[in-house]
């Protein structure tokens, strides 16, 4: 009888808190949104299930949660907290990215830079809310709209906020089609939205092969903190473009990235235990994340309008919104809003240029913040 009583006391039912219940409901909601509404299913299903798993109350003396030494979840979570998984995802992203739209119209690269204003203004906003500089840097990178980069930087600067930052980053990436269009329409006139741009030129294979090596050198010699992310991104791209390592490129952009995504999403979700996640600062992080996305979108659009003051061949300012590096969702949003203004104006290929440049920009921004806030 005593043994039974002891066992019952250690069950999850006995130890379930209201916070655990809330988090389990959130996890199930994420899973439903992914399945019913197709909101970023490859991310929200692992994260949602991880949240459910991570909020089953642990038993004292048993290594079960991501925070218990020796637990299986802890070993998986090692890839997140050590910053191993994000560069591997970048390897896969590089192996599937086509930089030719960027190579054919280099001035659109600057729109990817302009969108990173969301990172640094959010950093200031987080500091204003009395977060420490390291925490503010980790929160600010949400504005880069890049999940792996956000996880990498928060693992380095503020691991205690990693769960909230990751959930915020991926949630807002899924909401890009909701967040961006009103801002884009507010900041552009109907005439500007109808500007047509020249289709991208054909880029030679040699250019596509030289670019990853040269761009890696340019980026990392200026911002060494971006070495790991940028290095893996361009390594993956070189595997793709070299023409002699197609097998490796294929593995990187299919099996490898899928395995890492599963492990990363699941373990990040499992790390969002109620007692660490359901804090007032999580709400602040979510609020700052929304602001970050909005500022990043506005930054790209406004910079495109600024460039148009000096250019003979105008840029459609909508394309600036694609500097938010949620690839390819923000490029698709540009295409959608452009078609609303002019059903014959297809901007997708032009929007991919600042979209991939935004990936570089957010990785460089992360490297800078890591260097400055660590030393």
């Amino acid at each position: 009888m005593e043994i039974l009583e002891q066992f019952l006391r250690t069950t999850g039912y006995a130890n379930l808190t209201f916070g655990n219940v809330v988090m389990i409901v959130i996890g199930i909601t994420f899973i439903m949104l992914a399945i019913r509404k197709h909101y970023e299913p490859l991310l929200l299903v692992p994260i949602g299930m991880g949240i459910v798993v991570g909020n089953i109350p642990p038993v004292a003396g048993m290594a079960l949660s991501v925070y218990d030494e020796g637990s299986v979840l802890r070993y998986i979570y090692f890839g997140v907290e050590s910053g191993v998984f994000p560069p591997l995802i970048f390897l896969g992203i590089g192996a599937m990215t086509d930089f030719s739209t960027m190579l054919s119209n280099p001035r659109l690269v600057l729109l990817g830079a302009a969108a990173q204003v969301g990172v640094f203004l959010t950093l200031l906003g987080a500091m204003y809310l009395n977060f420490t500089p390291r925490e503010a840097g980790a929160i600010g990178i949400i504005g880069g709209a890049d999940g792996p980069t956000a996880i990498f930087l928060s693992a380095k600067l503020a691991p205690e906020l990693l769960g909230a930052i990751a959930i915020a980053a991926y949630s807002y990436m899924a909401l890009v089609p909701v967040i961006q269009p009103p801002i884009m329409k507010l900041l552009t006139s109907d005439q500007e939205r109808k500007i047509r741009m020249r289709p991208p030129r054909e880029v030679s294979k040699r250019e596509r092969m030289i670019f990853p090596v040269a761009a890696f050198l340019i980026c990392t010699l200026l911002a060494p903190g971006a070495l790991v992310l940028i290095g893996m991104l361009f390594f993956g791209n070189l595997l793709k473009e070299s023409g002699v390592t197609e097998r490796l490129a294929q593995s990187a952009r299919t099996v490898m990235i899928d395995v890492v995504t599963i492990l990363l999403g699941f373990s990040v979700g499992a790390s969002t235990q109620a007692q660490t996640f359901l804090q007032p600062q999580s709400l602040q992080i979510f609020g700052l994340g929304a602001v970050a996305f909005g500022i990043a979108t506005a930054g790209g659009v406004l910079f495109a309008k600024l460039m148009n003051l000096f250019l003979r061949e105008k840029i459609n300012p909508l394309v600036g919104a694609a500097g938010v590096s949620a690839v390819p969702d923000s490029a698709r949003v540009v295409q959608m809003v452009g078609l609303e203004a002019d059903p014959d104006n297809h901007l997708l290929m032009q929007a991919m240029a600042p979209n991939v440049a935004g990936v570089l920009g957010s990785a460089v921004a992360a490297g800078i913040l890591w260097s400055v806030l660590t030393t």
Partner: protein
Amino acid sequence: MGIENIVENDGIGIAVVGMVIVFVTLTLISVFIALLPRLLQFLSFVLPPEPPPQRAARHPAPQEEELIAAIGYVLHQRELGASQSE
């Protein structure tokens, strides 16, 4: 309180320097990309000529062959039906 935190931790300095470095980096990349075709042309006497892009030989995919066969059969049946009704 919030402003003091920004000032004490040199938040504005970090933000400005960060944006400048991001812009300089991507501007350098943009300039390199713009110069790359000319650089390759300059090096053309050293580098072997690039083969022209190969257009894939137009062999119909297996599914296309089946589709063509199916369309041909339907047209043949229609022609047979038309000639019988005459």
